[in-house]
């Protein structure tokens, strides 16, 4: 049975789209038929991060309104044939996402894919509500700082009360916490919340910790999901995250401060 996974956060700029692209690509590389849907109508970015911005003809709203068939709007990824992207419209507004329309499109996507990844817009307005409404699983992305953690907390409250699963009183959405832009050095200096702090406030299992990395910015600029950058910490941390989502048990990597040259020689803590 296909699963709908929403990537959400409440706060903007924490790495939702980067995560949607990385997790989507990661699942597809492991052989799962995956589609990533951009819900950020009016501010679409997923196509840029995935490097398919020049191939967009029809979009999600065209499909909802019956102007295009789903197959016409889906873009197949050039690097992995198991991966598709459904881009958002840049010219409409979010009200074009109707609950019934979104439901019908997601149902159709579920028939041909194993995972439907919904990339939520920031905020808790209509677009974000539509992105999470039909979800089976949620990956809540947060940065290690207080405002982002509070927004994630708010979003978790919404997931447990406003989703279809909550409204129909079936098994609740499975929630996972993903900590991004984590910098062990800055945690040690007391400039950031630690993993334990974030976990304590949100009381959820952590599915991954993605270190702050220049590789993420480079990947975005190049339109290549960072998970394909096997050399980078961030890319490998996303691979671990995908494995954990699929049930693998892996220790967290890249969560300790890198030792300097002298530290490595003397092996001090």
């Amino acid at each position, binding site marked *: 049975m296909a699963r709908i996974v929403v990537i959400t956060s409440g706060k903007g700029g924490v790495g939702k789209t980067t995560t949607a692209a990385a997790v989507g690509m990661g699942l597809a590389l492991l052989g799962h038929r995956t589609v990533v849907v951009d819900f950020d109508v009016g501010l679409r970015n997923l196509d840029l991060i995935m490097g398919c911005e020049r191939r967009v003809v029809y979009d999600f709203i065209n499909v909802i309104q019956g102007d295009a068939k789903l197959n016409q709007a889906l873009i197949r990824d050039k690097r992995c044939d198991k991966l598709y992207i459904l881009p958002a419209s840049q010219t409409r507004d979010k009200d074009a996402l109707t609950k019934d329309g979104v439901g019908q499109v997601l149902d159709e996507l579920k028939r041909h894919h194993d995972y439907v990844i919904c990339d939520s817009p920031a905020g808790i307005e209509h677009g974000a509500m539509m992105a999470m409404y039909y979800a089976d699983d949620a990956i809540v992305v947060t940065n290690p700082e207080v405002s982002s953690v*509070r*927004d994630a*907390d*708010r979003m*978790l*409250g*919404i997931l*447990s*009360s406003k989703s279809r699963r909550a409204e129909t009183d079936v098994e609740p959405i499975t929630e996972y916490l993903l900590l991004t832009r984590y910098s062990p050095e800055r945690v040690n200096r007391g400039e950031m919340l630690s993993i334990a702090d974030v976990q*304590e*406030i*949100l*009381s959820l299992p952590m599915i991954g910790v993605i270190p702050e990395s220049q590789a993420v910015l480079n990947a975005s600029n190049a339109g290549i999901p960072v998970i394909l950058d096997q050399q980078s910490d961030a890319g490998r941390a996303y691979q671990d995250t995908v494995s954990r989502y699929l049930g693998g048990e892996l220790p967290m990597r890249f969560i300790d401060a890198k030792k300097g040259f002298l530290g490595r020689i003397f092996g001090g803590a």
Partner: protein
Amino acid sequence: MTASQILPAQAAKQALEIKAATFSLPLIRLLDNALDQLALQVEEKIAQAPDLFLHTPVVIDLSGLPEDQEIGSFPELVGVLRAVGMMPIGLRGGNALQQQAAKAMELAILSETRPRAKPEQRHEEQEPPAAAIEAAAAMPSIEVGSKVIAHPVRSGQKVYTAGGDLTVIGPVNSGAELMADGNIHVYGPLRGRVFAGIKGNEQARIFCQHLHAELIAIAGQYRVSENIPSELKGARVQIFLDQETLKIERF
């Protein structure tokens, strides 16, 4: 076309169920029969907390009056209470005449908790009002309106327990709100806003394991985080009212 033709599938559906439920209602206990005095004193009470009794169902209790003492007019008494926004829904005690008047106004006649015919009971009825108030204050502790929440209460979520205690097993996060007519217990870090005794119960208390609350309030007396002494931050405390002042005490 009949309704059953339109909705054949729903014809067999159960349309109602009858269940027992217990509600805790304010009791307006008359200690004197002078209606003008009553009107004045009710208005005084309301002035202290204008919203507290607005649209609140109340029960009129005449068992505190000597049996032979007649109140001016029962409909007038109901009128006084309605004028300040209360919704009298029933009568407890009173003589046959008063009960008849209540029935005529479609108020329910509620049974008394104890028979008032026995002389020694009668004696108890006339105990000083202070003792009676104390007895009433002790009653919410056996509330059935209590609620237990066994998951985190997150930012933006509100939980209210009418007529009883609220217990949360788990964190109450910053931006969350807990409200209860009775006590509030939090087994987990308390970072949100808590209002105990929200309908004016000054005996209500707040108990928590780790105090990091943004705001604490009992019966309208409140303190924001800034005014909570820093040595009590993170401590296991109880919070209660002492002479209308909030006290935070380790326990």
